[in-house]
């Protein structure tokens, strides 16, 4: 066994990995082909390599939802394949595919109307309409599961771990605001 060689190999390999992680690889229609797989996921051909199932991550889901979308390999390591800098610059078909995958990966309904909130023994039982349909959920009042992000946006977590969003508090009607006033 030649120790020197082994050592060199390891160092070279590690350097490669760091270089790979540092590189910014931008993906757009010019260098990549997006396709939907039969199983319902997204495949990408990029720089000559084919990725059978990629993971689509929004890097700024709240502030820049359509920008800097990171495409990653779908395994434990999750190596970054590349970044889509601006989704609006993709052609329509590709954009639809990416948006579909984002929706597939994340689930955070936006509350459009608060129908009723019942407050019972430390839990709040919500009855709301969301952009994903009507929904009932329960949140623990004192556990800090209701988070105020900035002045307007509110994220609420229910007892199962689902998150619900109120993007703009000021757009709620006064009666709705009164119902949730206690929690914010």
């Amino acid at each position: 066994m030649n120790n020197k060689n082994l050592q060199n190999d390891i160092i070279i390999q590690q350097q490669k990995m760091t270089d790979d992680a540092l590189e910014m690889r931008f993906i757009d229609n010019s260098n990549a082909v997006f396709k939907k797989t039969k199983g319902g996921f997204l495949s990408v051909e990029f720089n000559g390599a084919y990725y059978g199932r990629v993971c689509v991550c929004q890097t700024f889901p709240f502030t820049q939802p359509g920008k800097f979308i990171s495409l990653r390999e779908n395994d434990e390591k999750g190596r970054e394949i590349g970044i889509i800098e601006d989704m609006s610059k993709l052609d329509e078909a590709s954009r639809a595919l990416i948006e579909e995958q984002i929706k597939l990966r994340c689930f955070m309904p936006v509350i459009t109307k608060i129908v009723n909130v019942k407050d019972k023994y430390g839990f709040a039982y919500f009855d709301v309409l969301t952009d994903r349909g009507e929904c009932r959920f329960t949140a623990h009042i004192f556990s800090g599961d209701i988070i105020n992000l900035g002045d307007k946006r509110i994220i609420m977590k229910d007892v199962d771990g689902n998150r619900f969003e109120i993007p703009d508090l000021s757009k709620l009607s006064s009666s709705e605001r009164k119902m949730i006033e206690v929690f914010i």
Partner: protein
Amino acid sequence: MKLNFKLEKDIIDKLKLKDKENIIYCVPFDLSTDGRLIKNSYTVVTNDRVIIVTEGAVTNDIPLSKCEDAKSEAPVDCGMLISTIDGEITLLARFSMKHHIRYGYVAKGIRLLHDGKDYVVRSRERETICEKCGMVMPKTKQCPYCGGKSQMLYKMGRLLSPYKGWVFLILFLTVLSSLLSMASAYVLRLFMDDVLIPKSGTISDAVKFFMIFIVIGVTVMAVSQMTVISSTLFSSKISNGLRIQVFNKIQQLSISYINKSRPGQLLNRVLWDTREIQRFIDDTLCGLLSSTMNFLFAFIFLLVLNWKLALLALIFLPVIVVILRLRKKRSRRLWRKSQIKSDLLYTRLQDVISGIRVVKSYGKEKYEEKQFRYINEQHAKATIRFEVFWAIVVPPTAFLFSLGGYLITYFGGMDVLNNIITPGELVQITTYCSMLTAPLVWFSNLPQRLNRLTITIERIYDVLEEEPEVINAQLPQKLEISGDVSFKNVSFGYDSYEQVITDINLDVKKGEMIGIVGKSGAGKSTLINLIMRMYDVDEGSITIDGVDIRDIDMHTLHSQIGVVLQETFLFSDTVINNIRYARPDASFNEIIMAAKMANAHDFICKLPDGYNTYVGEKGYSLSGGERQRIAIARAILINPAILILDEATSSLDTESEYQVQEALGRLTKGRTTFAIAHRLSTLRNADRLIVINDHTIAECGTHNELLEKKGIYYGLVTAQLEINDISSFEEVLDEAQPNVN
């Protein structure tokens, strides 16, 4: 957690179940592929197919044999069930976090069925929300609300039943004290009517009444003293009894139950939940009894005295109840708001103080001040609103309370003037009226307190009714262990949802030392837990000297296995008590001998109080190596036939490691030993090494055999070199070499 939901008949019809086809799992999902919330959708797993029902219609129907590698994935706040079908990773169902845990189990179930195993996965996880009533469950098996008040009363009754005498005593005392209050009002009336009004009373009359008042006063005092004392005795008796019951149950329950409960949860059940019961009895039960009695007697006496005025008083009660409710609702909201703000304030403060170095080094003090000022103001505002509310609302409520009394005084006063009743009677009536309203404030708090009690009782019963998984056989054998251990087709998982080890086969002869290596999480410690019978195997069997360990008396088994773990646990007690923990009857000779063998005697002698030194959390702090040597002494003292070392030397520096190694060398001689080690060099004395990989024994043999194989073990040895200094490669290889002479 429920894994087999009942389907409506029309959906079952659509499944077109064949002969001998049964539904094994049936779990709802609530998201469509494009993320809409949907209802009436299920993943149905039979012994032949996986069927997806979306919004009442079958949308996918796949033979089990094609569903490979079923998995439940959880990307961001939702989950999906996927499976490889015809080589293509396919999305089967999407669900919110509500069903996320359930699908972990179901995916495992599909994998097992796919592999042709008929083992049905069960979940011990608790539902978060009661299916029937939709209320949040307090981490218990049964919903405290659904059982209804009768269930709660039954459970409360069962708690109280051993203490019937106390209950009657307290009941008697409260009745007595109520009657005394009634009587004192009556005496007052007599005093007015017979002595004051006619102005015919003599000094002796005044003295007589004075004496009566004194007697009543003293009796009231004595009765209330007795009530408080007996209720305190009663409640602490109950809570002490419960605490011991819960504690014993927890000790009896298997490690799996304890591991599954969140840290602190069991502690809370022993301490807080039992204390809550005590507090309920102290505050609520006695208060409830005396309030009810006062209310009842006052009302009955009023009716007898003057039914018209009694009804007048009654008219005011609903008004008061409504006012109290309104006031409570509003004040609770305000209080909660100020509470939330104070939480925020606290969080912010904690953030800044613990991050003060960052704040200072980036010069962000001004920014933090602004943030803090803002939250502080909000907190102040919320608190002020709450206080102001009380200041404004409380006096008018009190006024409304007394308004009823004024009216009765007015109408009663008219009656007095019209000579219908005597002035003394009026005084008596107004006293009773005030006794009617006082308990109302009290009653309005009752639902909240009862709810707390319901949850507490449910939590306590949840532990008390839990059945331990690992129990002694009907006729356990008291085996004198000699040391042959063998594993036959052993499989096990902490959750039936995830197998940690599968199909382990191994024969270990008496006196052999087995080194267990493998990546962390591979199942090494699990294997050891099984030998100690902390858990029972799911499949296969472990035998010691040819006897299944499930047939060996647990106490006998544990007293013959010695254990030294990575994190040595020392109780907050003296060194000597820690050493003789498993054998309290050991002689001092034996203890010193054991300590010497463990290389511990020398350092113990140097401790300030020698063997009597108090160690542990609040005592003298020992180094890792010293603690480890005490643990070894503890193991030596019981002279175990089987010895288990779980990473016993991994957290030590080189010098103490040498001392510990030497002690271990003495300890392992002639005993069957299972040793787990991350640092392979510490296994140099092992007769055989087994490599656990992918939940099973991947390689087995001596150090040299495994190195020559150039398999996983070889990889592990070289990988350790990457972490350590490369130049020490050969050194490590040499070190890892067993001593073959």
